[in-house]
């Protein structure tokens, strides 16, 4: 398919791409330099977002993960002014990415930092000052074994990832130690993205059932808490099973549960 020359990116959208494939992009630059842009042929030029699974290369984009090539047109969102390409891959191993919100398990306290297991290749560090309202004197009450919802501040390859539990304005906004009880389980990273997508049907259907709380980490961990243990487990089972269910199957399962 994509032997040496590569295929235009637009033609591969929605298809399976493999690592090493080259996706060609319309050459905006050459047009600009060779002659005056007449403005009729080329699409409005903007910054193209090259998402996970893709890398820049001389001709265009180089695929580094296998999966389905996804594309979003320009103007769909504020973040992607010039459109975005990324690879939707099936994956279970989490690789820390700057800005991701994840659930970590405290494994130890080392001096000023907590060690957090986030499911990546290395444990993340979390400073005790990176909590809302924490000062040198007023340490946050974090014990080994606690669950922490936080955000990656530093996530480079070859470096220890660093997390924080405050946003840029110093407020927690939902981050920090996740409360008592509840149930933590792990799903694939693809399912997490499916659940976090705006207007996700699974979440919308579940929200009609009964009161419960949900924390979704980009590292594939989900924490659920409902009023009773039974209710919690029902949600857990649905979430675990729904990855490979069709919409009808899911609706049947939900109807059965809500009837109880």
């Amino acid at each position, binding site marked *: 398919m994509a032997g040496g020359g590569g295929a235009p990116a637009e033609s591969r959208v929605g298809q399976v791409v493999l690592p090493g494939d080259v996706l060609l992009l319309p050459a905006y630059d050459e047009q600009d330099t060779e002659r005056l842009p007449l403005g009729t042929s080329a699409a409005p030029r903007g910054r193209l977002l090259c998402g996970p699974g893709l890398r820049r290369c001389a001709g265009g984009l180089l695929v580094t993960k296998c999966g389905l090539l996804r594309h979003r047109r320009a103007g769909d*969102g504020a973040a992607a002014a010039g459109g975005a390409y990324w690879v939707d891959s099936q994956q279970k191993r989490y690789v820390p990415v700057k800005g991701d919100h994840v659930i970590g398990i405290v494994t130890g306290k080392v001096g000023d930092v907590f060690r957090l297991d986030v499911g990546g290749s290395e444990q993340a560090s979390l400073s005790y000052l990176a909590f809302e309202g924490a000062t040198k004197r007023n340490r946050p009450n974090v014990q080994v074994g606690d669950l922490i919802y936080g955000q990656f501040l530093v996530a480079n390859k070859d470096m220890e990832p660093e997390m924080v539990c405050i946003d840029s304005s110093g407020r927690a906004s939902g981050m920090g130690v996740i409360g008592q009880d509840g149930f933590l389980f792990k799903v694939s990273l693809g399912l997490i993205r499916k659940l*976090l997508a705006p207007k996700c049907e699974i979440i919308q259907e579940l*929200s009609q059932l009964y009161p*419960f709380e949900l924390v979704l980490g980009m590292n594939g961990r989900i924490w659920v808490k409902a009023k009773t243990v039974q209710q919690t487990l029902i949600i857990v089972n649905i979430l675990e099973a729904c990855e490979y269910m069709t919409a009808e199957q899911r609706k049947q399962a939900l109807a059965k549960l809500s009837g109880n």
Partner: protein
Amino acid sequence: MIPAVSCSSHGCYRCPGYGLGPAATPRCQQPARNAEGGATPPPPPPASPPPACAAAALRERGDPARPTGSAAAAMAGEVKTKLSKNLLRMKFMQRGLDSQTKKQLDEEEKKIISDEHWYLDLPDLKEKESYIIEERSFIPCEDLLYGRMSFKGFNPEIEKLMVQINSKSKKEEIEEDDKMEADVSDEEMARRYETLVGTIGKKFLKKRDQRVLHDEDEEENSNTKPKKARKMFLKPQD
């Protein structure tokens, strides 16, 4: 000779011979020189010990073969031309320098600086400005929601947060719409402010100034209307 101590021109800080008279001065003259390089011709004997260290330096840096024991007057002109670069660069020597030597020194200094300047010996970058941004996160690509959720009032705090965070993008759009249609036209705004100038301006005046303003108004009024009896403090009668 005691080679342990030498004068500043030889690389140490203190000249022990300074001000001690001829008996002590020879100490500072030679040893460092010998250490500097074996190729230099043997130094002249310290026939006339210099009175100060600076003078010793002058002599040292000059022509080593020059006879040292000559008259001081004859030396003066000679010395002036043969001052070392390092010495001329010193702060106190700058005053007496003529422009030519100054320029020469500057050039030399610049040359040294440019020689020592490091630069990368690379060909020019041929890459044009890239319009591709690499992003390792799915969140901006797929517009993912915030990961904390609560339903049917299980955790009111989180529900408030959900509304706040997840509606951020929608709000921005709404705000933009607002900007498009102004509620009050510019003309109306100007008219409103016209009337406000006086009333608001009063606020920023001091009490005393306000009163003056007020009085002026009254005087104007008094031209047309019968003059009001001025209220004054009347001394109470006993």
